[in-house]
């Protein structure tokens, strides 16, 4: 197989892998923000494929398309994150299951398994970000966390 074709081949595989892994993330994760992240990852997969084709075909069209993808992704991120913020304001939760009220009437909510009660075994370390506008110097225990998170 010629080198150029092999490069295309391998890049397409990487693109497919990014796309597939992003898909898995989008399907599985319950956090709205992580879902969007996974969606962006799928876009990256496509971008890689396009760039590879651009190189192989000796054509700028693929790269131009990637630029547009980046532009659209930026738009999407802006609007989607705004929406996430709005949704979060309403429910105080980033769990997508909160919005399954959009189901058909008289249908029970889909529950695969109960949520784990405790956030994991003891000793597991959780890096945290300080709440916006609060000085990070305040000890973690004293921060008045919202009940609903």
């Amino acid at each position: 197989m010629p080198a150029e074709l092999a490069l295309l081949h391998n890049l397409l595989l990487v693109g497919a892998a990014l796309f597939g892994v992003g898909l898995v993330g989008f399907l599985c994760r319950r956090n709205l923000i992580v879902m969007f992240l996974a969606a962006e990852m799928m876009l990256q997969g496509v971008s890689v494929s396009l760039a590879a084709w651009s190189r192989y075909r000796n054509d700028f069209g693929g790269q131009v398309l990637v630029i547009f993808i980046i532009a659209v992704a930026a738009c999407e991120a802006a609007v989607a994150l705004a929406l996430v913020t709005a949704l979060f304001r309403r429910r105080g939760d980033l769990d997508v299951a909160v919005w399954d009220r959009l189901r058909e009437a008289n249908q029970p909510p889909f529950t695969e398994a109960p949520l784990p009660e405790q956030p994991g075994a003891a000793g597991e370390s959780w890096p945290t970000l300080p709440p916006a506008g609060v000085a990070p110097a305040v000890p973690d225990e004293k921060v008045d966390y919202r009940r609903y998170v």
Partner: protein
Amino acid sequence: MPSAKTLLVVIPAMPLLAAALTAVLGPRLLRTRSHWPTVLGVAFSFAASLLLLFQVHQQVRAEKNATFPSVTLWQWVDVDSSRLAAARTAALVESTAEAGAPPAAKQGTFSINVALQADPLTCVMLAVVTCISLLVAIYSIGYMRGDRGYWRFFSYIPLFVFSMTMLVSASNFLLLYVFWELVGLCSYLLIGFWYQRPAAAAAGKKAFLVNRIGDFGFALGVFLLWTTYGTLNYEDLFGPHHLPYAREALGTAICLLLLAGACGKSAQFPLHVWLPDAMEGPSPVSALIHAATMVTAGVYLVARCLPMFREAPGVLHVVAIIGGGTALLGAIIAVTQTDLKRILAYSTISHLGYMFLALGTGTLLGAVAGMFHLVTHAFFKSLLFLAAGSVMHAMGGVIDIRRFSGLRRRMPITHWTFLFGGLSMAGVIPFAGFFSKDAILLSLAECSGGLIYQTLYWTTFGGIVLIVLYTFRPYFIAFFGPEKIPKEAGDHAHESPRVMTWTLVILAFVAFSVGMVLEWNHVLSDFLAATPSWTTLPLPPAPEVLAKEHLAIALQSSAAVLITLACTAALYLGTRRVIVARLTGLLKLVGIYQLSFGKFFFDQIYWLFIILPAEGFAALCAWADNHVIDGLVNLCGAVPRWFGAALRPLQGGLIQFYALSMAIGLLIMLFLLLL
């Protein structure tokens, strides 16, 4: 002088205009003046009818085989049916090959014209109809005063007059059928005029439904006429050069089907049950529609088709037997009834039976006698109904003769006019009924039909006795004896307003004199004999022979009538009620009284054998409709719903579930496409 064609169009046009005007302007503008268009329009068409009658009469006197005026308004149906006609002719030739002479079916187009024609028969009918309509319309001004539906009444009446005049002047069977139905509709509307009363609404429905049975037969008869002859025009069927009539079974079938229609409309046995109930309508309606005009449409139809009936074997016997039987039946029932209007209704059924009987002889004498009786009956019966209406008006709606008596002092004009009508109906010389009744007897006596007509002659003779009895029994009970007024009458138990009494007086005069006028010099019979379709009927014997016979019959019948009148007076005048009671008891013992009082239980028999099974079937159908049909329909609706219910869990509202479905679908597509 307007031409006959103009008159022919004007006669129905004026009432139609009046009906439209009253219907449009009545409720808002005319209100209590709603009678003006009707009275003026009908008066106009009455005048036109008289002029037309005069013109046609002149024509008949002037030339032997006159062509009578006819006018084609427009062509209604025009279908090129040449191929159809050819097929029909072939079939007909095949079917009538063994049945004798095949009638030559007309080739070409099936075209129906809205055309009117005026032969003597039509002219006589027109004159009678418009005359009675005018008088009844004038009478109604007084009778219907203050009614909430005043304008409605006066828009129905001219509509009826329009329909009836069109019916008698139509020149083909299809047009006849249309207006046949339209008079039926008017009858329905006017019987149920006081539709808030359940009895009136039910009576209207009953009349309409019973008429449907007859009209169904009539419609089938018209269809069969067309398939047989290829034409529906009177000109082709009854004109001087008419088609040869189908004989044997086909001819009989056509005639019997037409007769079914006539029986329904003219309340003949076994379809007579609607007419007594039709008395729920206002009295003027009873007088106009259910005594004088609409119910005679059947008689007119039979008279119109008489030559065809003659040619079909056995049909005339059926007509005569139905007529005679109904005449006797009606008379027997009328004797024991207590409702004055119902007595008159049964007497109408009886008299219509006499008309059928006369036509059933199939001779010119009989045909003329039937029409003569139609004319005289129209006058005296409408007079009696209007007089009864006057009584009802005064008694506050009470019409049961057991509840009032001795009215002759309070209502002298009504009393006298009722007496005139009664004498005319009873056939007392020289009242109108005398002449027409004797004409019928004469036609029966002269008919060489064998034993059947002999029997019917004596039946009729017996019926005459009953006529006197049932006419004068209510008369004596209501107008003589101690004065008794029902409480419903209140303070208006007095003579009716002048507009009503004058109408009664005019009618009384006509009912008295019309027989003499028409019998004078055989005016009517000579005129009617010129009807194109009747020229083929067997002619009566020489006038000298006839006059002798006539005199004998007149003497016999007059003797019978006068003796019965005397007996009735003796029974019901004064204090001889004991004898009446004894006689009634005797009749009750035999069972005849119960039969008569129960109207021969026709309503009950029909209820048991027709209505009950039909209602059972309807209940079954309703059940099937509710459970089977609706069940199927609901099933059709439920299947998508079940399907939807099965799919609904998929709509979990969870966006990732949708995305997963999409991804799996995409994967399957990729598998199918790429691998």
